[in-house]
């Protein structure tokens, strides 16, 4: 691998190791969910009810690692930091892996 590319991959791994900032900083500044991405419970707090159509679909899918942080806000900070780093590294593998896989499929079709 070219040294330039090696450096870039190393940079991506450093980003994954720093990704817990994404959970620590919002806590520090008392900031909550992104606008429009509330849970059904939070929505009930905000507007007094959960819209019927929304309620029907809200739990359609059970993701294996919800919000990069399966313990949620209640888990210890250490656990949340650990899950974030794990999710970041897994994200690199999945995202890059998907591209390499697609690249292979395209090439096979070209021949």
């Amino acid at each position, binding site marked *: 691998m070219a040294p330039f590319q090696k450096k870039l991959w190393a940079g991506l791994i450093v980003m994954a190791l720093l990704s817990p900032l994404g959970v620590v900083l*919002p806590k520090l500044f008392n*900031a909550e969910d*992104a606008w*429009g991405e509330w849970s059904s419970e939070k929505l009930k707090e905000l507007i007094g*009810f959960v*819209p019927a159509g929304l309620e029907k679909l809200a739990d*359609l899918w059970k*993701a294996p690692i919800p919000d990069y942080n399966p313990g949620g806000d209640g888990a210890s900070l250490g656990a949340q930091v650990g899950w974030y780093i794990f999710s*970041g590294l897994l994200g690199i593998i999945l995202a890059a892996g998907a591209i390499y896989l697609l*690249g292979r499929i395209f090439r096979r079709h070209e021949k």
Partner: protein
Amino acid sequence: MHIPDGYLSPQTYLPLFGVAAFFWATAVKRVRSALSHRYVPYLAMAAAFSFLIQMFNIPIPGGTTGHAVGGAVVAVLLGPWAAVLTISIVLIIQAVVFGDGGITAIGANCFNMAVVMPFISYGVFRLVAGNARGGKRFLAAAFLAGYIGLTAAAVVTAIQFGIQPMIAQDAHGQPLCAPYPLTVAVPVMAAEHLLLFGIVEGFVTAMLVNYFVKHEPGLVYAFREV
């Protein structure tokens, strides 16, 4: 900006799957013929980068959070069609594995962040940069590509939220999906991206585009097309 399941009615998310599918099919065609094997590692890194930058939630103190997407830097460095493909893959992984963005909203989220954002960003960059390959004008072009691209994606997302109370309500006029009207959704999402998240996307774009122009100028898609 990741719309969860339930916030969009079928009459919104189904057509957006169609639109996204059109762009996916075209992107596959364009990227296959335009990119040789040596670009595959860069596409892979672009996807990993976009995934990671989205984990850095930026707080508005006492309010909401948001994040950069990386769509502008990928569009300028690898081209808007490569960005369609890489950012879409990231968004699908986020929805399926991490529950970030709904399964039913994959088409909508891909349209907003993987189509609207890269094309607006790329257009802004080309328009502002002209023939500049460094200097103030060039840096401004990269910053604006991120700033305007992300804000445009946020506004398009807000429109999808905001039309729900009009098109999805029960017999009593109660909203069935996203409850806030356009007059709330658009100003809120536009403001938070104009004032904070867009600025972060702009700086990230300017820094990285500048780095690549210095170290690997042959790679930069926006220059090859000039």
